[in-house]
């Protein structure tokens, strides 16, 4: 979505919806002789947003400033019983929430 536009400067905003599918997590339990079981996570929704300012310094050089934000959730995984030579251990990944905010600056050269 264009918020502002001039001959040399553009400001843009995007809003997104995220849906995870076929989500898996691998847990490294090799220290306990339980291998690396793969668990299926419950899929869930998330959201993302982006704000970008792009400015041309001249015909070939330019700068960009950006801010990205993402949020998503995973439900708890299926429960699996993992067995080594000594014991049987139930393994389950709990539900989780993740937020990532990314910001930065870009220099670009236009050929």
């Amino acid at each position: 979505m264009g918020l502002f536009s001039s001959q040399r400067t553009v400001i843009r905003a995007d809003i997104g919806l995220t849906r995870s599918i076929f989500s898996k997590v691998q847990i490294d339990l090799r220290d306990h002789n339980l291998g690396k079981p793969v668990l299926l996570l419950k899929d869930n929704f998330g959201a993302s947003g982006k704000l970008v300012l792009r400015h041309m310094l001249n015909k070939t050089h330019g700068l960009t400033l950006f801010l990205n934000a993402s949020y998503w959730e995973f439900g708890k995984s299926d429960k699996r019983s993992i067995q080594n030579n000594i014991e049987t251990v139930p393994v389950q990944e709990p539900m989780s929430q993740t937020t990532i905010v990314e910001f930065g600056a870009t220099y670009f050269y236009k050929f």
Partner: protein
Amino acid sequence: MQIQVIYRRYNCYNQPITIKTLKLMYTHPFFRRFFSFLLFYLSSYSICIAASTEAIISTKYLLIEHANYNIYGDRLNKEQGRIPGLQLAVSSTSKRLEGIASVDIYSGNVPYDGKATNGDFSSTTSIKLNRFSYRLMKSDLIVTPNFTALLPLVTGIEIFNHKAI
């Protein structure tokens, strides 16, 4: 791997007035192979008709917060940290297509606040993320497919180390 579907609506001056994005993330091997093949095919098409090319260098800063919860909503642990990164990319734009190939490198530490498997209640996790991605957009359609893909099976470039120290 992610798939993004972007919906754009244009006003009478051909300026986008609404954009809706649906992003899907999945890890099934079949879809990775299929889209890796598709993206390589499309990228060669994009380069053939490219009208404008940009070389891009970016410095980035990631703020990450990750928490796990039990079934009652109580927080089990929390990882919160800042990770600096660097991106090198090449963007190729034509009248109809825009393709961006990039290499991202992130490295940093994330404090872990919670019960670890060895019984500690706090520790630090080091994260290194090296990523190759390719995104292709077709800009003249109302419904715009927008693919963002990691290609670990084809290139082996995606390396994710998540190691407690």
